[in-house]
């Protein structure tokens, strides 16, 4: 009797697993079919110009990001939305791929690209020499400014004041983290896993200031009373999408698509939609 039940269970499991498998296959088949009819031209163009590129999952552009960085990426319900999400969607449409977004820690993004877990990463990521050694970057699609958030009435008035034994809150692995660690020493920099936690720490006087990208900084300041952004910026830098070094064809295809999107004004439109003119 026991054996019979065991056999039955094994059978049931096989059937259910098989069901899962075939359903997934159907799904992708459906979507690829739909996508291809939609954008055969674009895909064909890209293929002809740049040779074959491969993605982690067939027919899907897997993007990694850290969805705690408004307005570039943040969560609305379960959905990751924002500038980067929309640009990635536009890129995926151009390439004839379906977009899938994975949310992870910012510091893990480049590792995830190297490990082949995601194809690209759009996360308001600045192009730096160190990063270039480990991943390829597409052309820049936006410029970012690192600014300093302080509380109203803070004795920090400019970048120079940061040197006076201040504790600086940053988001782990961001350029702000790297630059501040180099400039002011590791002991004066507290790295939090996301920007919101760093701002929380600032509100409670745990840190004296937060160095973070301008757009999220503006959102944070707007959402919390008693904070302000210093007029002098910390650094100015370029944002770009990161792609694995093993996949130059994808970088080329993305650059081509990016250029087309810049030319037809799509990128500017997306930026304007999220970043209000001052």
């Amino acid at each position: 009797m026991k054996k019979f039940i065991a056999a039955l269970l094994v059978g049931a499991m096989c059937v259910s697993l098989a069901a899962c498998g075939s359903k997934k296959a159907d799904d992708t088949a459906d979507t690829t079919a739909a996508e291809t009819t939609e954008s055969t031209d674009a895909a064909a163009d890209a293929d002809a110009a740049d040779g074959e590129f491969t993605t982690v999952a067939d027919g899907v552009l897997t993007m990694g990001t850290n969805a705690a960085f408004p307005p570039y990426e943040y969560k609305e319900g379960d959905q990751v939305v924002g500038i980067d999400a929309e640009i990635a969607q536009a890129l995926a449409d151009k390439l004839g791929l379906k977009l899938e977004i994975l949310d992870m820690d910012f510091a893990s993004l480049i590792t995830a690209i190297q490990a082949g877990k995601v194809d690209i990463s759009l996360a308001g990521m600045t192009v730096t020499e160190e990063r270039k050694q480990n991943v390829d970057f597409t052309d820049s699609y936006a410029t970012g400014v690192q600014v300093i958030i302080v509380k109203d009435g803070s004795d920090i008035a400019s970048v120079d004041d940061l040197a006076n034994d201040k504790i600086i809150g940053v988001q782990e692995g961001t350029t702000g983290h790297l630059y501040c660690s180099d400039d002011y020493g590791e002991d004066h920099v507290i790295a939090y896993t996301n920007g919101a936690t760093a701002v929380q720490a600032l509100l409670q006087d745990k840190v004296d200031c937060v160095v973070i990208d301008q757009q999220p900084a503006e959102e944070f300041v707007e959402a919390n009373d008693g904070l302000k952004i210093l007029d002098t910026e910390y650094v100015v830098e370029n944002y770009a999408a990161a792609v694995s070094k093993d996949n130059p064809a994808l970088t080329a295809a993305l650059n081509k698509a990016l250029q087309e999107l810049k030319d037809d004004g799509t990128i500017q439109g997306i930026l304007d939609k999220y970043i209000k003119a001052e």
Partner: protein
Amino acid sequence: MLEGLKKGLYQTFILDDNYQYFIKGIQTTLIVTVFALILGVILGVIIAIIRSAHDQQPERKKNIFLRLANLICQIYLTVIRGTPMMVQLLIMWFVVWASARATDGNMIRCAILAFGINSGAYVAEIIRSGIMSIDKGQMEAGRSVGLTYATTMRCVIIPQAFKNVLPALGNELITLLKETSVVTVIGLRDLTKGALIIQSKTYQAFVPFFAIAAMYLVMVLGLSWLMGKLERRMRQSDLR
């Protein structure tokens, strides 16, 4: 492959004196673990005594203070064991101790408090199991030769109970050591944070993570060896 490993090792340990992150990280991890354990054991013993005193008394003879103390202990155990360590730590740092500046000293003190309070709940139940495992006759014997309840507890019951619970206590110590890795959420630079910082600087994941895995393993081996020694020492009177 070998080239990559060499580059990884170089970037992880030698470049920019990165090995310093590991040394400082181990110090922080050990400080938090040891002091949290001490706090946890103190809390645990007190709670275990209250709880077992309450449980061992007949229903009609229980006094109101003991009932109240037992109730408080039970609430503490339920809340602490029923919520994730990381959440407790975040609450401790951002809510309870909101006024603290983010200096290393403050973060370490906060971590010790949070982990000590957390550990206390688990240690309490471990020690209570030890107290309950000692035969009722031991207490009766102690009391009948004229020892007070407290003295019997201190000199007869607890020493025997402690010996019984050593393996379980060692288990808790090892769990505590590894669990301290969640202090990264408040920004404290422990061993795990060190590896994360190195990862974000060099984009190497393989070497730093394996390195800290090995370091945690070595620390745990050291602790188990110490616990083993302590256990043997406690068994010396056991020649029967």
